[in-house]
């Protein structure tokens, strides 16, 4: 009798689990595949027939210019940011200067601030009413233009490249370098024949992240580009000013294609080059045993690191000062008026940003982990397809996913536009690849074997998942949670088309204030956003353990940024 009840209970649990698992393909289809189909349909189909009619504006002079502009800015910025990231990583990981740990925190500060904040600061310093151009030099011009975009993209994205490359560099076995030295190679030779090749997975991962980030960014070009248009800003204008959805869809697909290409190039190269250990837990600090470079190289590297740190410091100081200044560019006296506006008129935005971010942070990683587990149970083509779909949001730039959601959920059968839910959903999907990948990594390394052990000891799928797989996934969950919170707080690209007056977000407020010339207000909103994000991630990190949370936070963010996407999109 008892065993019958137990069997029934097992059956119910198994079915419950199956139901939960079945939600995975459903979510994939409804919230990833369907919107993608919709955007392809809008761009290249007239009813049911294929058409290139919507793409013709691209062949006009303006369209061609946009394409060339995009290529120029994204390539130059990606190369620049990656090289700067490599130099910074070497300086921090291989160097011995004091404060290099603080430097890592400075880089994280970049990561947790909205993507176009550098552009806000740039305008405050070099714009028409800029502190340097106007107040100090008395000029009436500004330094905006495509060079400004490239400069800001390099600065902003170098920190992402730095974090990714540094985490790989740290994990390179120092004995490899030592044995190369021991075999008689010069230090320079060791660097080019051992260290650099071993860094390549990190460098490629950084290139993918940085490239996707830059090409999707419409805020920076709009704010500092002057009339300089790129694909992302053009798509933005097509949607919000002209409501030309078909052309915007074409632009979006064009935007997504290179990202997809880069991602899969990286994946394929990486699969042959997996030389470094990928254990999440093992991150040794090889500080004591590294072969140093010669003095001149090191000096150069340090100088670059210091300049970068100073620029970062400047950036956040300007934001902080600007937030408490009466009228930036005219009256630099202390004032609380911007902060007052933010806390009163912006209270709704603050509440929205926080609520959405917390919801995404709690729900998103759970879905990602369940998906990782579900996919790992499958085999063959079905598994490869699911895997592809799960990381697809990774390759789709934020604005593109935003536009696809507008297209997909503005009409029946599922009308979600105008609700807060769609913003939460789009952020969850955007974050899916992070917790999915982290979960997959953990599963591949430890959980696989332990899952077998659990089944072998007589546990059903339900118990196996909740007692073994899920607890082991907590590091992955934490990584996903932190990233989800940060990104939802700082995102704009994916949500700008979904925001309504009822559910405005802080990033949206910063963008519109700055874009309308209210620099002080933009700075104040930025300041509040950064503080809230910082507090938020500290609280989230503490959820696990109170002592040592700082260390854990650093580790989670760093480790998580290895293969996942630590940046803000836009």
């Amino acid at each position: 009798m008892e065993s019958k009840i137990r069997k029934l209970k097992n059956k119910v649990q198994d079915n419950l689990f199956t139901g939960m698992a079945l939600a995975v393909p459903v979510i994939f289809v409804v919230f990833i595949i369907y919107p993608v189909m919709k955007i392809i349909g809008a761009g290249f189909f007239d009813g049911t027939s294929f058409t290139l009619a919507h793409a013709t504006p691209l062949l006009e002079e303006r369209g061609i210019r946009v394409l060339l502009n995009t290529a120029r800015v994204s390539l130059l910025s990606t190369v620049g940011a990656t090289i700067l990231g490599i130099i910074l990583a070497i300086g921090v990981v291989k160097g011995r200067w004091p404060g290099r740990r603080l430097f890592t925190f400075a880089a994280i500060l970049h990561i947790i601030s909205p993507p176009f904040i550098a552009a806000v600061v740039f305008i405050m310093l070099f714009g028409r009413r800029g502190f340097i151009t106007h107040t100090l030099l008395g000029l009436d011009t500004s330094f905006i233009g495509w060079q400004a975009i490239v400069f800001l993209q390099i600065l902003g994205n170098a920190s992402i490249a730095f974090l990714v490359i540094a985490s790989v560099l740290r994990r390179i076995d120092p004995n490899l370098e030592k044995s190369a030295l021991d075999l008689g190679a010069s230090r320079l030779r060791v660097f080019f024949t051992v260290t650099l090749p071993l860094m390549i997975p990190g460098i490629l991962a950084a290139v993918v992240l940085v490239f996707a980030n830059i090409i999707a960014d419409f805020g920076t070009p709009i704010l500092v580009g002057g009339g300089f248009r790129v694909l992302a800003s053009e798509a933005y204008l097509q949607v919000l000013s002209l409501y030309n959805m078909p052309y915007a869809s074409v632009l979006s697909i064009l935007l997504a294609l290179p990202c997809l290409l880069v991602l899969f190039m990286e994946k394929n190269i990486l699969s042959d080059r997996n030389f470094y250990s990928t254990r999440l837990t093992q991150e040794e600090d090889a500080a004591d045993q590294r072969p140093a470079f010669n003095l001149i190289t090191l000096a150069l590297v340090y100088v670059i690191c210091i300049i970068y740190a100073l620029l970062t410091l400047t950036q956040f100081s300007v934001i902080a000062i600007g937030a408490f200044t009466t009228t930036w560019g005219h009256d630099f006296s202390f004032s609380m008026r911007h902060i007052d506006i933010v806390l009163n008129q912006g209270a709704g935005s603050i509440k929205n940003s926080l609520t959405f971010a917390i919801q995404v942070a709690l729900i998103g990683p759970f879905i990602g982990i369940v998906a990782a587990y579900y996919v790992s149970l499958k085999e063959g083509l079905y598994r490869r397809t699911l895997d592809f779909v799960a990381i697809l949001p990774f390759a789709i730039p934020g604005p593109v996913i935003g536009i696809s959601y507008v297209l997909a959920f503005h009409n029946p059968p599922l009308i979600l536009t105008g609700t807060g839910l769609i913003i939460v959903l789009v952020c969850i999907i955007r974050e899916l690849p992070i917790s999915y990948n982290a979960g997959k990594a953990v599963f591949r390394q430890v959980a696989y074997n332990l899952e077998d052990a659990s089944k072998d000891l007589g546990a059903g799928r339900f118990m196996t998942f909740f007692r073994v797989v899920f607890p082991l996934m907590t590091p992955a969950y934490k990584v996903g949670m932190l990233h989800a919170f940060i990104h939802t707080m700082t995102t704009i690209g994916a949500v700008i088309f979904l925001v309504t007056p009822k559910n405005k977000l802080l990033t949206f407020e910063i963008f519109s204030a700055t874009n309308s010339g209210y620099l002080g207000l933009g700075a104040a909103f930025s300041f509040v956003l950064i503080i809230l994000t910082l507090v938020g991630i500290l609280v989230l990190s503490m959820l696990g353990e109170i002592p040592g949370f700082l260390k854990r936070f650093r580790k989670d963010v760093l480790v998580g940024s290895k293969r996942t996407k630590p940046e803000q999109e836009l």
Partner: protein
Amino acid sequence: MDLSVQNLSKSYKKNLAVDHVSFEVPSGKIYALLGPSGCGKTTILRVIAGLIRPDSGRIFLGGKDITDVPPNERPTVTVFQDYALFPHLNVYDNISYGLKAQHVKRSTIQPRVYDIAAMLSLQELLARKTHQLSGGQQQRVALARALVLNPKVILFDEPLSSLDTSLRLKMRQEIRKIQEQTGVTSIYVTHDQEEAFAIAHQIMVMNSQGQIEQIGDPETIYYHPRTSFVANFMGDSNLIPVTMVENRPEISIIRFWGQELTIDPQLLLREQEQPCLFFRPESVLPDPGGCFSAIIDKKIFLGPVTRYILKQVNGASGEILMDLSHYQQDYREGDKIRFTINTIPPIQSIQSRDGS
């Protein structure tokens, strides 16, 4: 309960890992699956555990077909190679995990865990996390976690391979002792022939193609290998090509090392065209009245024994390995000796038989 594997095959992407394997594990014994790495022995174990689905073949436990029973409902438990202890649970929770999975009454879980912990001297460690344990302790926890379920069959997947040598020797005694105490039917996968000898009642030797080479008790496998693969895998061996003079079912006459001998045909390995006489280096004994003579060509000190490589006096090709304890006899290179070869049943020289 006895376990029977019938005609089991499994391939991975066209690579045949297990090739039509059948064997019977008698109840209450330790049965070793021995073979080089990659020979499919772990695959067999996982099929028995239900973690891998075979391409073909059936598994019977106590006469009941369990091939399609899911792993969590099988009365088999695996002790994994790297133990697969749950890192987020302490020792107590690791050991009690299977009992909870089987919804054993809470009140009986604790005494059972304590009993098994006492048996394996783990009482002091129950509150520890698994990463705070030494290798040997982790091994014992893995064993306890399996034993506490009173499984019908325990499957050991190279359980000692990550321990250092001295601990390995100790643990294999302990495993054998505990198996004898509990009488649980065990299958023990290893690539270490010494470990298989020390632990198993029966040994099944597999080759790299996933086929069975030989099944037998340790002594038979060691002294009467049926193939040169088994002969060489089990240790150093003398496999000397011989000339057949006469070949009858119950007796063979061969020419070997300048002598005509009558031997039991089962001492010959006939895989190649020319049959080979097989014997172990320690079967060779110096004997002033022995019928073979040789020159010591090389002397190699190996520790427990000294190995001599013997050449024929007349300079004919071929060499024989002879292992002697240092206290038995000590020769120098170049010494001439006479010797006999001990086998069961014994080799007989035709001359000596005629002479008697």
